[in-house]
C-alpha cells in the first residue's frame, strides 16, 4: 500500500464521517416529523429543507463559546473531541467490500468495541468539568449506563466472532451466511439494543433526560462545542449501525456485484438500521434509571449468554 493510497482512504473515511451523520440527522428530522404528522424543516435550501443541518451548523459556528467560571477549563474544552473522535477511528476497520477497508485489522471487533467505549469518557469529562450538579449526574448516569450495556454488547459480538472463528470484521463478513440471521438473531437484537443504550439514544436517554437534568452533561456547552457533541451522537448512530450491519447482517454482502457494489450494500443496511434507531426514538418513552439498569442486567445479559451458549453448542457439534 503506497502512502498516496493510504491518504486517499483516510480522506474517504473522513468524508463519510462528515457527511453520513448529516444524512442521518436529516432523515431523523423528516422521518420523525412525518411519524408525528408534521412536515419538519421545509424552507432551508429550498427543496423540503434539505439544507437545514447546514444552516444549524452555521448558526452554531456563529455562537459564543462560553466556559463557566468554575469549570475545569482544559477538560471542559477537550471533552467534545474525546466524545467525537473515537467514532472516526472505528470507521477505519469497517469493511466496505470483500477486500476493502481503510485497514483490515485482524482484531477488528476488539478494536472497534474498545474504541467506541472511549466516547463515553468524553461524556464523563464533560459532566465532571462543567461544575454543574445536573451535568455531573448526567455524566455519572452515562458512565453507569456504559458499565451495564458494554457487557451484553461484548457478549453478542463474542458470539458472532465465535461463529465466524475470527475477530476480523472482514473475516466475519466473509464467513456470514443468510441462515445466520435466525442463528445469531438474539445476538443481533442484543447488540443493536445495547448500542442504542451506548449512544444514549431514546428510550435509553436517561443521562440527558431534559425534564430532570436540563441537558445532562451538555448543559453548560454552547456554540461549536455543543454542535460537536450533537455530531458525535449522529456519528455514533452511523458507526453502530455500520457495526451491526458488518457483524450481523453480512456487511458488504448483497444479492449481486459484491466486489464492485459492496459499499452500496453496506450503506443501504447502515441507513436502514439508522432509520430503525430513529423509529425507536419516536415510538417509545424514556426508561427510568432503575428500569434501564434492570433491563441490561436482567434482560440483555442473560439473552446474550443464551446466544453465546447456542453458538458454542453449534460450533462444537459441527
Amino acid at each position, binding site marked *: 500500500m503506497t502512502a498516496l493510497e493510504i491518504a486517499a482512504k483516510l480522506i474517504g473515511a473522513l468524508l463519510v464521517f462528515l457527511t453520513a451523520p448529516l444524512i442521518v440527522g436529516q432523515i431523523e428530522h423528516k*422521518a420523525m*416529523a412525518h*411519524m408525528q*404528522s408534521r*412536515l419538519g424543516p*421545509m424552507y432551508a435550501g429550498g427543496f423540503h429543507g434539505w439544507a437545514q443541518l447546514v444552516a444549524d451548523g452555521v448558526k452554531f459556528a456563529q455562537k459564543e463559546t462560553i466556559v463557566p467560571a468554575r469549570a475545569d477549563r482544559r477538560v471542559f474544552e477537550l471533552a467534545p473531541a474525546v466524545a467525537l473522535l473515537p467514532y472516526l477511528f472505528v470507521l477505519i476497520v469497517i469493511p466496505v467490500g470483500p477486500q476493502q477497508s481503510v485497514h483490515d485489522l485482524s482484531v477488528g471487533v476488539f478494536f472497534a468495541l474498545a474504541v467506541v467505549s472511549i466516547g463515553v469518557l468524553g461524556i464523563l469529562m464533560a459532566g465532571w468539568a462543567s461544575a454543574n450538579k445536573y451535568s455531573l449526574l448526567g455524566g455519572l448516569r452515562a458512565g453507569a449506563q456504559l458499565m451495564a450495556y458494554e457487557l451484553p454488547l461484548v457478549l453478542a459480538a463474542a458470539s458472532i466472532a465465535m461463529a465466524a472463528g475470527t475477530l476480523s470484521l472482514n473475516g466475519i463478513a466473509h464467513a456470514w451466511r443468510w441462515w445466520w440471521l435466525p442463528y445469531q438473531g438474539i445476538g443481533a437484537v442484543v447488540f443493536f439494543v445495547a448500542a442504542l443504550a451506548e449512544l444514549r439514544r431514546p428510550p435509553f436517554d436517561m443521562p440527558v433526560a431534559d425534564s430532570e437534568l436540563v441537558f445532562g452533561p451538555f448543559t453548560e456547552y454552547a456554540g461549536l462545542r455543543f454542535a460537536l457533541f450533537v455530531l458525535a451522537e449522529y456519528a455514533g448512530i452511523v458507526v453502530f449501525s455500520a457495526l451491526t450491519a458488518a457483524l450481523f447482517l453480512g456487511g458488504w454482502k448483497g444479492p449481486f456485484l459484491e466486489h464492485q457494489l459492496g459499499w452500496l450494500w453496506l450503506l443501504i443496511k447502515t441507513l436502514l438500521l439508522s432509520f430503525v434507531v430513529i423509529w*425507536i426514538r419516536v415510538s*417509545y418513552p424514556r426508561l427510568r434509571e432503575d428500569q434501564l439498569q434492570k433491563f441490561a442486567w436482567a434482560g440483555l445479559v442473560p439473552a446474550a449468554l443464551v446466544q453465546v451458549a447456542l453458538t458454542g453448542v453449534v460450533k462444537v457439534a459441527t
Partner: protein
Amino acid sequence: MNVPGKGLAQGLGVTLKSMTKPSVTQEYPHQHPQLPPRTRGVIALFEENCTVCMLCARECPDWCIYIDSHKETQAPQTEGGRARVHNVLDRFAIDYSLCMYCGICVDVCPFDALFWSPEFEYAEHDILGLTHEREELREWMWTVPPPPAETHNAEPAKEIPS
C-alpha cells in the same frame, strides 16, 4: 392472547402508519388555512342595520365597544304630519386589544348588524392600532361567509314565504 413485546410492536406500527399518511400541517403564510364556517376571527359591522340601540356596548363584558351618535329630525313626509327623530351613527369602534371574542354583542344585536368573520390577519405594531373604526368593521363584512346550507329535510326558515 398476551404475547410479550406485543405492545412494543404496536407502538412501532402506530408511528410507521402515521408516517405513511399525509401530514396535517398547513403551511400558513403560504397556504391559507381551511377555516370551518362560523369561525370566530373578527367581528364585522353591517352598519346599515345598526340603530344605535347600544345593547352591544352595554352587554360587552369588558366595555370594548365605543358608540357615538346624534339625533336627526326628519321633516314630516305629509302635510300636517309629525316630524320624525332618528339616530345617526357617528362612531362605532371595537377595541380588539380588550375584546375577548365572547360573541355576546353578536348574539344580543336585535337587528343583525354584527357578524362573525373568519378574517384573523389584523395584527398591529401598536396596541392603539387594534381599535378598529366603523370603516374597517364595515370592510370585514365582505368576508362574512353565507350561512351554512340547511340540513336535508329541515323545516324552512320562518322568514322565507312558502
